[in-house]
């Protein structure tokens, strides 16, 4: 019986065949597994797509919201990773495939697919025969048009994500606010996120075609979070960004990260940002952050985590109280104070979120009264802007 089946196997044509070093395969399977979810409604997405072409091997994983493509070149830095005998592609059950490759005995892995998509994985003396799925069934990721590519330094991109992604809304009532709105114009990239109680905005200049203009590119906050985890910290590298009608692609040397975009119009946030101010203060970022953090120790015991803030002559007083626990007062020295006296209350959490994402030593906070949103900006303006809506208590 065994013999009959084997001879049948030989009869069917070879659909794909390559060999690869195990370490490289495991490393790249791990990359794409980050996009694979077991809770998908589309059966084919439980698999990893493996494509062997003449220049290397590409793995793809996706949960339809994000997709990750990982490329293994035949050789790099005089090290040989893979040899291709027959180009082709197949989709294999992701969970099983990733478990198998991790535990294979030898340094090298051979993968061979026949025309019925039966996939033979051999390594050392071990042999697996898996039922593959048709790669034609796999979603087609948008093709990249080389023309409209933007370039951003990896570390800068990670910064931008860190400085805006935290402010996205987590409520589904206005889905478009769960994303970060990107606008590209005149070689500048502006990213805005808001949950309608606070807003974070960052503008950087990017390396793009002068005429490149994109509006209302809303990238889900979750996707940016995942992207940030995947991007390598070694600075100096560049990320290429391509925007299509439905997806955005971030491309590093061997990784491609796709995210679907959010549908709908992002609200015009410019008119939320006050243009004048009645009270302007300049103070140390760190001192304020620590003082708010301490005041929040009591405030967060209360339901709303609100701290009070009052200007004195050359300092400010931060206070909060919990009906059960007691109260706290702290004075923070100011570098400068201009304008009217002010008493205001705000969420300690929002303030901590915003301050902890500003790297500059000193910040300027501009108030326009106790009921209006206020602005936090680094003194040497780096294109960062944080806005917080106050809470009514005084």
């Amino acid at each position, binding site marked *: 019986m065994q013999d009959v089946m084997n001879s049948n196997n030989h009869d069917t044509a070879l659909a794909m065949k390559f060999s690869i070093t195990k370490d490289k395969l495991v490393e790249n399977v791990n990359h794409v597994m980050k996009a694979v979810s077991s809770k998908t*409604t*589309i*059966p*084919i*997405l439980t698999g990893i797509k493996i494509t062997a072409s003449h220049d290397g091997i590409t793995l793809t994983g996706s949960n*339809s*919201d994000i997709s990750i493509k990982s490329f293994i070149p035949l050789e790099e830095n005089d090290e040989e990773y893979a040899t291709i005998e027959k180009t082709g592609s197949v989709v294999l059950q992701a969970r099983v495939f990733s478990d198998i490759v991790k535990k294979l005995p030898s340094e090298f892995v051979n993968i061979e697919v026949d025309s019925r998509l039966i996939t033979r994985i051999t390594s050392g003396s071990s042999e697996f025969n898996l039922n593959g799925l048709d790669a*034609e*069934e*796999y*979603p*087609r*990721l*948008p093709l990249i048009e080389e023309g409209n590519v933007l370039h951003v330094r990896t570390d800068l991109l990670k910064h931008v994500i860190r400085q805006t992604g935290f402010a996205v809304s987590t409520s*589904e009532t206005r*889905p*478009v606010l*769960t994303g970060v709105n990107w606008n590209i114009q005149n070689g500048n990239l502006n990213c805005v996120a808001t949950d309608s109680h606070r807003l974070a905005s960052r503008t950087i200049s990017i390396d793009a075609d002068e005429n490149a203009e994109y509006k209302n590119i809303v990238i*889900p906050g979750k996707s940016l979070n995942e992207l940030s985890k995947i991007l390598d910290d070694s600075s100096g590298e560049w990320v290429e960004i391509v925007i299509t*009608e*439905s*997806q955005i692609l971030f491309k590093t040397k061997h990784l491609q990260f796709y995210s*679907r*975009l*959010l*549908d*709908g119009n992002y609200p015009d946030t410019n008119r939320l940002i006050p243009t004048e101010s009645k009270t302007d203060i300049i103070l140390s970022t760190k001192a304020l952050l620590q003082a708010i953090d301490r005041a929040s120790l009591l405030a967060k015991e209360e339901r709303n985590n609100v701290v009070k803030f009052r200007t004195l002559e050359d300092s400010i007083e931060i206070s909060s109280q919990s009906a059960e626990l007691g109260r706290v007062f702290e004075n923070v020295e100011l570098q400068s104070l201009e304008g009217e006296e002010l008493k205001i209350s705000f969420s300690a959490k929002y303030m901590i979120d915003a301050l902890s994402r500003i790297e500059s030593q000193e910040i300027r906070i501009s108030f326009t009264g106790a009921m209006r949103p206020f602005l936090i900006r680094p003194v040497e303006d780096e294109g960062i802007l944080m806005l917080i809506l106050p809470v009514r208590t005084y």
Partner: protein
Amino acid sequence: MGFHDLAKQQKTVSRILTNALRRDQLAHAYLFEGPKGTGKRQAASLLAQAYFCQTKNDDTIEPCQECVNCRRILSGNHPDLVWVKPDGKSIKKEQVSNLLKEFSYRGVESIRKFFVIEEADKMTAQAANSLLKFIEEPSPQTIAVLITEQAHKLLDTIVSRCQTLTFIPLPEAQIAEQLVQQNISEPLAKLSAAVTNDIDEAVDYCHDEWFAKARQLVIQLMEGTMGQSHSPLLMIYDQFFPHFDEVHKLDIGLDFILYWLRDILAIHLENEKDIVFIDQIDILKNQALKSSMQQITGKMSAVLAAKKRLSANVNLQSVMEQLVLRLQGGSHHAV
């Protein structure tokens, strides 16, 4: 399946959809409404194919069935076709939130998206309300199809935002006739035509031994409840329960009982061509003599009440016990 197949049974629906496709004027939301087995799901799948097909015939609007998109729609792997059907008795909260997410994202492969919600009446009012917004102001390339057998159970606000297409069942007589042409005995053909509107399903029933046996058991039971010869209660424990051991099976059994009673009513009304249990006409006539129309309709409402209790998850045995007692009770009063 193509639009020409759809047109065989659903002429109007097929015409409306092909015209809309030809003029590129698809509505953003459709409500496919009609009884079971009238091809609503197939029509939704066909419409999705026509929407995504890459090599659609421009004149006939028939999707090619061969391109990657057509094939993936049939296999359930098209990433921009979101197909939701109740997981058990209702559409779960998790399914609704996934649906909302899909509505708020752009497509995977293009900006075109297609949504199908099967048994849309099984959404909670809250879920339906959260969908309203998307059905009301969808993005231009989004199409939603809601499928239901019970349009009256949907919120008015949903219905008013959809273009309703009604799927009509083939007349029972026509299905039965087609079955008889396929060498199926008339009594069986008539019963399966009464149970389903789907000709393929009807053929399956006719070749199913369970179905034939179920028919025999119901005849036996109905003889028992109306005569005094043998006790129907004993019979349901001995034979009925082992055979009708699941909710959907018992539901079919209750339908049979209903047809039996309807047959008696048909004899009263001298409408003998509508009789389903055509080979039992003597017994039916005999029972018709013994009971008034009022008693029969009383029994029919007892069966409907039993069906309702069944769908409310009442224990199968207690549903049947109560029903048999009520069916018997009716005839005892008559004596």
